[in-house]
């Protein structure tokens, strides 16, 4: 008793001491509070004060991904064009070098070609290939002429004249329009009056089917003879060389001093191992619920996912095969999740605080914390006492069911180690690694509220409930393992099909409580382009 009295004295003394007692906080306190207050924004319906960068983050990310894809393709295209140009330039240099050598030779035309009598065959035709034979050939340089136009290494065997006669097929009287650079060169450099023959040498058409029949060739043999004669005058011009297109078995006369013929050559290319891929992953989401919420200051909350959710991942991936077997892969992905969850919160009536509404309609606000995949949220539910005349005991149990709908958008960045098994067009591919998840959008709303206590019903109107998401993590780590097949029907393209398993590492909210996590089972399907 004496102790109780002492306690009462102590209580009174303490209460009176603190009555109307005030302490002055730090002078910058208002500034700190002001920083945390939401900015006053006009009601534009675009979300409460979201900065423009965050509001358009998803659109910006998609634009960046598309830009990355396009720029990769353009860069690849430019790379090949440049490569072709380089190789063609090298070939052009070789040819012009050859031409220069032939030009610098001590009048090869005069010494070798001009004495046509020496070059004439028994049939009386000029060996045109001998002119080409005079051109030096670098060992290993691309063979730009056919063997028919180039004498064998022994140099003793002369090619058949029929090559020439068959090559000059059209009647000499015809004068088709030049259709190639070399032909134009001939047409420009060789006016008909330059050739003292009765008929001008005209380039042949490129299509073999337009060749005259053999009989006609025979009829034209005399024309060929005269052509051979004209070659004497052609050979006097040192800047001419005889070329033969590999695909077009006709004779072309090119004025090398005017234009170096460029023959497009596709470079021999070995894929570098780098690839760019587009993948689509239909995914099944399986929730791993966090532990039951048993906060000392909050009621117990049990959350259960309403049904299994399907979603899809969209990937733009790039990677490199390092040594045929091992490789690395990264990229950028997008996942949108929409899931409904049912939460059961168990209160006592005393947990509620008066929510207003007048004496005729007593309402009470109940606070609790909600843990969802996106993070924690603080929820205030307003419940209205159905019969306000009834006295509700303080310990009256109240159980509310709240259904929430979450919408999350994640930007996913994988860092995977890959292993390719087997060789050939069809290979096995195993991948494993980490996935960084950046939360682009995280929204939650309460869909339904149900009271299991008949004395109370959910409040209506604007203040029926509030849901304030906690500061959620903007980044969290996950993992992915996949094993599948890659089929490579072409050198540069491959198809990929990989069953995959991915999930999140354990995450905690701002007060250290474990959040629910998700395990996903999916099937990656996509295409890769190898550079």
């Amino acid at each position, binding site marked *: 008793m004496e102790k109780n009295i002492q306690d009462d004295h102590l209580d009174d003394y303490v209460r009176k001491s603190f009555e109307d007692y*005030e302490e002055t*906080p730090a002078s910058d*306190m208002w500034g700190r*509070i002001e920083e945390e207050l939401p900015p*006053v924004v006009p009601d534009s319906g675009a979300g409460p004060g979201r900065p423009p960068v965050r509001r358009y983050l998803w659109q910006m990310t998609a634009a960046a991904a598309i830009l990355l894809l396009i720029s990769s393709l353009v860069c690849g295209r430019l790379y090949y064009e440049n490569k072709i140009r380089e190789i063609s330039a090298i070939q052009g240099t070789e040819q012009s070098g050859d031409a220069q050598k032939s030009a610098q030779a001590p009048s090869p035309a005069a010494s070798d070609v001009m004495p046509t009598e020496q070059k004439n065959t028994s049939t009386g035709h000029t060996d045109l290939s001998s002119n080409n034979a005079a051109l030096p050939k670098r060992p290993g340089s691309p063979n730009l002429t056919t063997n028919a136009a180039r004498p064998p290494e022994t140099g003793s065997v002369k090619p058949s004249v029929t090559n020439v006669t068959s090559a000059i097929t059209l009647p000499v009287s015809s004068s088709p329009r030049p259709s190639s650079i070399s032909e134009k060169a001939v047409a420009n450099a060789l006016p008909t009056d330059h050739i003292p023959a009765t008929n001008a040498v005209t380039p042949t058409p490129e299509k073999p089917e337009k060749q005259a029949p053999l009989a006609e060739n025979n009829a034209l043999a005399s024309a060929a003879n005269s052509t051979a004669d004209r070659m004497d005058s052609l050979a006097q011009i040192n800047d001419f060389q005889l070329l033969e297109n590999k695909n077009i078995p006709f004779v072309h006369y090119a004025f090398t001093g005017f234009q170096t013929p460029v023959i497009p050559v596709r470079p021999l290319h070995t894929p570098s191992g780098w690839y760019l891929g587009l993948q689509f992953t239909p995914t099944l989401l399986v929730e791993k619920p966090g532990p039951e919420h048993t906060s*000392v200051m909050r009621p117990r909350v049990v959350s259960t996912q309403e049904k299994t959710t399907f979603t899809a991942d969209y990937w733009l991936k790039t990677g490199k095969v390092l040594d045929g077997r091992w490789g690395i892969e990264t990229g950028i992905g997008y996942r949108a999740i929409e899931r409904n969850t049912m939460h059961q919160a168990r209160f006592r009536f005393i947990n509620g605080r008066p929510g207003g509404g007048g004496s005729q309609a007593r309402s009470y606000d109940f606070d609790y914390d909600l843990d969802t995949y996106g993070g924690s949220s603080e929820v205030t539910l307003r419940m209205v006492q159905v019969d306000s005349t009834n006295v509700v005991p303080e310990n009256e149990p109240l159980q509310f069911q709240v259904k929430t709908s979450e919408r999350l958008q994640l930007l996913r960045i994988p860092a995977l180690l890959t292993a390719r098994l087997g060789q050939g067009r069809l290979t096995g591919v195993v991948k494993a690694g980490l996935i960084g998840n950046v939360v682009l959008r995280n929204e939650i709303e309460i869909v339904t509220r149900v009271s299991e206590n008949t004395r109370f019903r959910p409040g209506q109107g604007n*203040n029926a409930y509030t849901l304030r998401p906690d500061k959620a993590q903007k980044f969290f780590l996950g993992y992915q393992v996949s094993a599948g097949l890659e089929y490579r029907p072409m050198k540069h393209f491959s198809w990929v099909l990989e069953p995959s398993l991915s999930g999140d590492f354990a995450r905690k909210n701002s007060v250290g409580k474990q959040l629910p996590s998700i395990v996903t089972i999916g099937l990656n399907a996509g295409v890769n382009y190898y550079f």
Partner: protein
Amino acid sequence: MNEPNLQACLRGDRLAQKQFFDRFKGKMFALCLRYAHSREDAEDMLQEGFVKVFRDLYQYTGEGNFEGWVRKVFVNTALQHLQKQKKALITLELDGQDIAEESTEPFFADEPPAKNMIRILQQLPAGFRTIFNLHVLEGYSHPEIADILGISVGTSKSQLMRAKAYFRKLLESSLTS
């Protein structure tokens, strides 16, 4: 002192909110100091409390004492702050452990008694301090404390007894030093 314009505060009027802050900052900071372990903790509670008050102001419908409503928000904020630091949980399990019962803070006669007692309260373990505040200074009953803290009524009672004894010892020690 001018009463703050609640409607203007609800609209987000900074001037009205500043007036509101000036009106309550002294009392609420004293409240926070009682629950906190240090002045820095109390300032964090005060900051968080005012943000919550401005955020939840629409919930006040005009019924009851407005200062009482504000005080309740600050008490809840202080409790949540302690919960985040897990101090309340830890110290409620201190049964059977030895705790120091000598004050290291002298009682300054030229200062208000409340200021001295805040220093003594801040030497109490967080669990004791919380129950002492809730029961003695906020007027909560043991069932209410038990529900708020998630403990049994018996634990609430026994912890309060120990908290009071601890507080008395520290007060006596402070007065004699």
